[in-house]
């Protein structure tokens, strides 16, 4: 954990410096022109437009790494630091108060949502990657072992499982379980495992499960399935128990896949809030700017 805090500190420090710089500059600027209260809000409003506009360009900048002089890692640091700066200016701009009108509520919520998702995303980027491989390793070879035991081919070992391949492996594990259950039922005529499979295992293998538990590193659900399997043993002979053991192993593999899936979803998913809401924020703030100027144009 110390590593994480070290990295977090390294990220936060320049951020604080930059954000502080923006705020200080803002105050100095405002003070030196001795604007009225309303004028400062105009100033901070335009600053916010500038900063948010710049932040919104980040997606495009990132795609131009082969062109731009800044490496993506530097760009990202600048983005995070500027993001915090934007939060500061936003507080200044709104006077730290909750909005009044309905329109303002929209604007306020969009900004907060973009900023909060950004903060969460940055935290995800710091914490989640290590989790992808720190837990009991789920590796291709583990699945291939299940595969070999079920008569499949040996695959190259020591490889990670990528997000895109997860559905494929999940389907494969599902098939392996089904084969095992069917073979046992056909050979023995006993319905014990088949019943359990139909009611409990088939839904489990059908798709990703227990996402939240996985994010909190909890083994509870899979443990629960294991517990539910114990009472079946009294109705099974030696071969039946062996079969159950194989199935249990496959359940654990599937659980690992879910764990990876949950983390991948978080790592990629937050951007689906951050980026579209940025677009919405830009549109709504443009409208906000026009309205504010229209309404204040006539006043002294």
């Amino acid at each position, binding site marked *: 954990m*110390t*590593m994480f805090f*070290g*990295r977090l500190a390294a990220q936060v420090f320049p951020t604080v410096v930059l954000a502080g710089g923006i705020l200080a500059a803002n105050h100095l600027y405002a003070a030196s022109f001795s604007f009225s209260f309303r004028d400062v809000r105009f100033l901070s409003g335009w600053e916010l437009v500038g900063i948010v506009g710049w932040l919104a360009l980040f997606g495009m900048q*990132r*795609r*131009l*790494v*082969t*062109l731009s*002089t800044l*490496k*993506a*890692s530097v*760009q*990202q640091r600048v983005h995070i630091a500027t993001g915090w700066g934007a939060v500061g200016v936003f507080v200044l701009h709104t006077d730290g108060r909750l909005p009044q009108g309905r329109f303002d509520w929209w604007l306020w919520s969009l900004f907060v949502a973009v900023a909060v998702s950004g903060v969460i995303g940055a935290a*995800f*980027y710091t914490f*989640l*990657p*290590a989790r*992808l*491989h720190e837990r009991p390793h789920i590796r291709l070879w583990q699945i291939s072992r299940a595969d070999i035991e079920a008569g499949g081919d040996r695959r190259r070992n*020591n*490889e*990670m499982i*990528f*997000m895109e391949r997860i559905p494929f492996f999940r389907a494969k594990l599902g098939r392996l379980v089904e084969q095992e259950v069917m073979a046992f039922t056909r050979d023995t005529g006993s319905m014990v495992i088949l019943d359990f499979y139909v009611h409990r295992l088939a839904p489990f293998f059908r798709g990703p499960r227990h996402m939240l538990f996985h994010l909190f590193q909890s083994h509870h659900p899979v443990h629960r399935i294991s517990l539910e399997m114990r009472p079946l043993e009294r109705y099974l002979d030696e071969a039946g128990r062996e079969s159950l053991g194989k199935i249990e192993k496959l359940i654990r593999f599937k659980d690992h896949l879910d764990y990876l899936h949950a983390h*991948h979803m978080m*790592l*990629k998913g937050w951007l689906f809030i951050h980026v579209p809401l940025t677009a919405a924020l830009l549109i709504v703030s443009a409208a906000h700017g026009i309205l504010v100027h229209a309404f204040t144009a006539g006043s002294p």
Partner: protein
Amino acid sequence: MNAPYAPPFDPDTQNQDLEPVLALPLFRAVNEANFPPGSSLRDILVRHARVRHCRRGDIVVRRGDYGHTVFGILKGRLRVLVDPGVEKLITARPVFDHKPWFTTLLQTWRTPNMPEIRHDEQANRFGFARLRRAEEIGSRLYLEDPETVITAFPTRVLVEGQSFGMIAALARSARTATVFAESDATLLELRWQGLQEIRYRDVHFRKYLDGLYGSRALANHLLESVLFATLERNVLDVLTRETEFETYGSFEWTRTFKQAMARGVSTIIEYEPVVVDEGQPLDHLLVVCSGFARVSVRHGSSYRTEGFVARNEMIGLEEILTQEHPVYRHRVSAIGHVDVLKVPVEVLQAHVLPRLSADFTPRPVTFREGGPPLSGREQALIDFFIDNRFINGTAVMLIDLDRCTECDECVRACSLVHDNNPRFLRHGRDCTNIMVANACMHCVDPVCLIGCPTGAIHRLAQAGRVVIDETLCIGCATCADSCPYDDIRMVEIRDSDGRPLRNGRQPTLRATKCDLCPDVRGGPACQRACATEALVRIDMRDRYTLARWLARS
């Protein structure tokens, strides 16, 4: 010695009449009685030699190509280009430069829908030379009009019975000159392994080769090392005379490597040929001139790896400087294959040490000389890098899995600047939190270069980068098969309209791999694109940078 199961250089050699070959002056002094049955000179030739027919104008070797074979002329006349300056006119290599800013912008904008589109290849790229692009082994560069070249530029004649290419073959380094056929010619081409096997069996041949090597290449090797770089000519002559050249392990290390990997990496160390053992009296300073050696100490029932030595690095200097009766502090074993120069200690003490400046400190060969012991993670990583021979790389792609968010921006950036098809896989072996991705590592000892029939894959002299000249690539996949790290991919290419190019019924293939983005400003696109600093390209010989990168939090 060489693995007896190495596949023959050319299966057709056994059907050849080898009498004229055995009559070559090169083999005249060889005493056949020294060879055991089953390994006669003739057997060695059948395994390691081939007879090559060249047409008038054919370029046999090109300056700068990676050589591993020696040639003997059976029939015909050849010419050596004497002046390296005219080389550029005759067989120009492609020149890489940064793309203009605007072109890069356009490239970002207009990604084609299809991968691997090639626009018309430039004609006459090779100066005077042409490529005979028969899509078969044997395609090569040739001069359309050798007479013009001979009259216009200074050349030296090579005639029947003479041999050439020895130095590059022995040191497996770049060819030092270009040789082309003045008339139709028949050549014997003997690969390195055969040369070494004959050297091993026959004293005269050994003397002849070592003499040749000693007079030409050894001094150059010594000069490359810091210790000897400033010596006067006469001292260097003494050293050259007294220094021995030894080779350990098999040059076919790709093969033995794969076998060793199949046995399991943890036992690799026990199979490595030992150069010197820990505690043995130190009588020679060892200078590595090619390949790698592992530096280890006895630990429990096996050995613990402490570091490695690469080209121009030395073993024993520290002991010689600090101990009265020096003994080797480490066990040194060949990682795959290593060539070493052995400089006798007395010679060193008499001629070199007195001239050494007082503040000279030898570079450590272990990862943490004298410091606290390595942590479990550090030891595991060192073993991992060495056992898997990733130390061969000068630009290994390391990915820190604690930071990689698997966003694939690195892959996208690579694809953007490489014909819409990434040149690496974000995938590979891993140990603790470090993954070595499947990207060309730009090896110190690039075995992929061996056997390329046209010299399309080559190493840039200045930068050490290994690149493929696509206009020369005939898609034979020799390099892809040779790369021990599986880092070369054969791709099907398309014309400007996106139609797959064909060569008869077969799709046209080209070898592709990471080229370290010579035309991208600011270095490899993959590294530039990684926002979390998870990805680096690292020279494994730079132990300091490596250790610092691995230790960052």
